[in-house]
């Protein structure tokens, strides 16, 4: 005879990916998946492919931020540190020791999880604003340290050697973006599945409980600090995977770029625009904001970089004022209402 708790958990796990998909939604989903798979074969423009790769990559990063901020309610403003750790791990292992990036990615994720423990144990017990400011300061401290660290190239960073061997073994594709496309799609789907599983796992429910009311959760016997550190580790590891992938994509890294505050900012913006704490929100945010920034760069030339940020900033202020639950809630409400009505 299962306990109540186990039965509830079982029921929650049985919950489908989306509430009772109507036929049109299933069809739309299937078409969407087919389009995503066929995309690089149908559209051969490298720029369009590049945009999609960035969308997938940013979706992973936003999903990573979603784990710590959306699920456990701790606002990190220094998430670029994990991105940079992932980037530097593959870079250093490749340039100094000739180790394949496939191993580098895993090592980077482990190191990022370790860094999350080191940063998280003292800071995660800080309340709201204090934690946000602490991560902001730690993020820029890490950047300063790497910019002075001669062994990893100090401010000029590292250039990854071009390899002519097996592209799949070396994770370097010089002639086509298509392999990068499928790899980034796979990483994005993986990140998506991680958050999907996490949201309905014991850990996920506990995180959401302590996000909504830490005192109540603690009084029910949830170890608040330990769970938050766990979430931070998962989040950091996901971010590091994105950093490693990005480095293999551009084959160059420097502290100014991979530890940039802009990375920390953008993951926040994407997740909040889409809907933090939700499964689809981060992906929606990435799908909206990446094309905005890539195409504004084309339309407005070199000044475009700041036009997209101006729109991002204004958008996020507007969303915080009128739709703090994110754009996704506009659709989600409608779908749920329709699903509820017979």
């Amino acid at each position, binding site marked *: 005879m299962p306990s109540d708790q186990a039965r509830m958990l079982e029921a929650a796990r049985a919950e489908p990916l989306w509430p009772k998909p109507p036929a049109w939604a299933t069809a739309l989903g299937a078409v969407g998946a087919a389009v995503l798979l066929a995309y690089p074969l149908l559209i051969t423009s490298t720029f369009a492919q590049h945009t999609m790769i960035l969308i997938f990559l940013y979706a992973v990063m936003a999903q990573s931020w979603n784990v710590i*901020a959306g699920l456990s*309610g701790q*606002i990190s*403003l220094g998430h670029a540190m994990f991105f940079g750790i992932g980037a530097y791990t593959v870079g250093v292992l490749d340039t100094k020791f000739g180790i394949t990036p496939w191993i580098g990615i895993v090592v980077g994720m482990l190191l990022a999880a370790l860094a999350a423990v080191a940063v998280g144990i*003292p*800071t995660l017990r*800080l309340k*709201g*604003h*204090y934690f*946000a*400011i*602490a991560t*902001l*300061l*730690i993020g*820029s*401290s890490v950047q*300063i*340290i790497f910019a*002075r660290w001669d062994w990893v190239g100090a401010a000029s960073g590292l250039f990854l050697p071009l390899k002519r061997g097996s592209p799949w073994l070396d994770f370097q594709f010089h002639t086509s973006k298509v392999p990068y496309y499928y790899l980034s799609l796979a990483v994005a789907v993986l990140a998506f599945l991680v958050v999907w599983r996490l949201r309905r796992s014991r850990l996920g429910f506990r995180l959401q409980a302590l996000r909504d009311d830490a005192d109540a959760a603690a009084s029910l016997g949830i170890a608040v600090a330990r769970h938050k550190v766990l979430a931070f580790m998962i989040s950091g590891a996901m971010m590091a995977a994105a950093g490693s992938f990005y480095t293999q994509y551009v084959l160059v890294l420097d502290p100014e770029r991979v530890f940039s*505050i802009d990375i920390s*900012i953008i993951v*926040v*913006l994407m997740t*909040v625009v889409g809907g*933090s704490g939700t499964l689809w929100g981060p992906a929606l945010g990435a799908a909206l904001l990446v094309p905005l920034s890539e195409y504004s760069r084309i339309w407005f030339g070199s*000044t475009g*970089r*700041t*036009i*997209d*940020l*101006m729109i*991002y*900033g*204004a*958008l*996020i*202020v507007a*969303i*915080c*004022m*009128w739709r*703090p639950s994110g754009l996704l809630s506009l659709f989600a409400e409608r779908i749920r209402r329709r699903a509820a009505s017979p």
Partner: protein
Amino acid sequence: MSKEFIIQAIVSGVLMGLIYALVAVGLSLIFGLMEIVNFAHGEFLMWAMYASFWFWVLGLDPLFALPLVAALLGLAGLLVHYGIIRRLLTAPMLAQVCGTFGLAVAMRAAAQYLWTPDFRTITNPLIAGRVQIGPIFIGQPQLVAGAVCLLAFVLLWLFVTRTETGLALQATAQDRQAAAVMGIPTERMSALGWAIGLGCVGVAGTMLSTFFYVFPDVGASFAPLAFVAVALGGFGSILGSLVAGVLIGLVESLGGLLIDPSYKTLIVFGLYLAVVLVRPMGLFGRF
């Protein structure tokens, strides 16, 4: 290391610290009134510096532009409060943080779009050169900036402790509901807090622009110091901001001198972590 170096570092640290303090006090005041951290504080400082710069281009020395910039920033404070913050007060914390954070992103991008990322300097201001006191040299702009910031601080202190409006402001910060019951218009007090807070930033930005580069990211380098100052002094404490601001100026200049200039920011950031972990209410905090 000679004694002169250390005295020199102490003097310049205190002068810089007075500016940090004036930037921090606005942040602290706003937090004390409505528990919102203004993540766009550094960007307002940057806009104040640009305002001062453009007045100088038009032929107005920063010293004369000072009241204008302060008034403009105060007005901006009212706009931000009534336009944005009022709606965020009841929102979840994520929306509060991201609201002002988004404002910061937009303001920085707008500055870069309007005025390019170039570094600009005000050359030949009314006050220039340096004075020699015994063995040490002090830049006159820094000296005047420190003095003006201290004066602004004294005025703010007198206002808050000696006038009825100031007392109402304090009452609102202490207990919003009780203040409302006593007939204090708490909503207007919050708006006033934003106006004063950003007015202080206007003064600090104008004085800073007389000897510091003006560029879109300048706020991003000062804002973290203000966060540290507010945490150190205690969120909501005015006197705390002054002490903490000066302390940070000192730590920064002495740390830069005794340890390594490139790590002076790290030392200050470490101070923040030490404070929030060991004494989260800060030196003068009330909770």
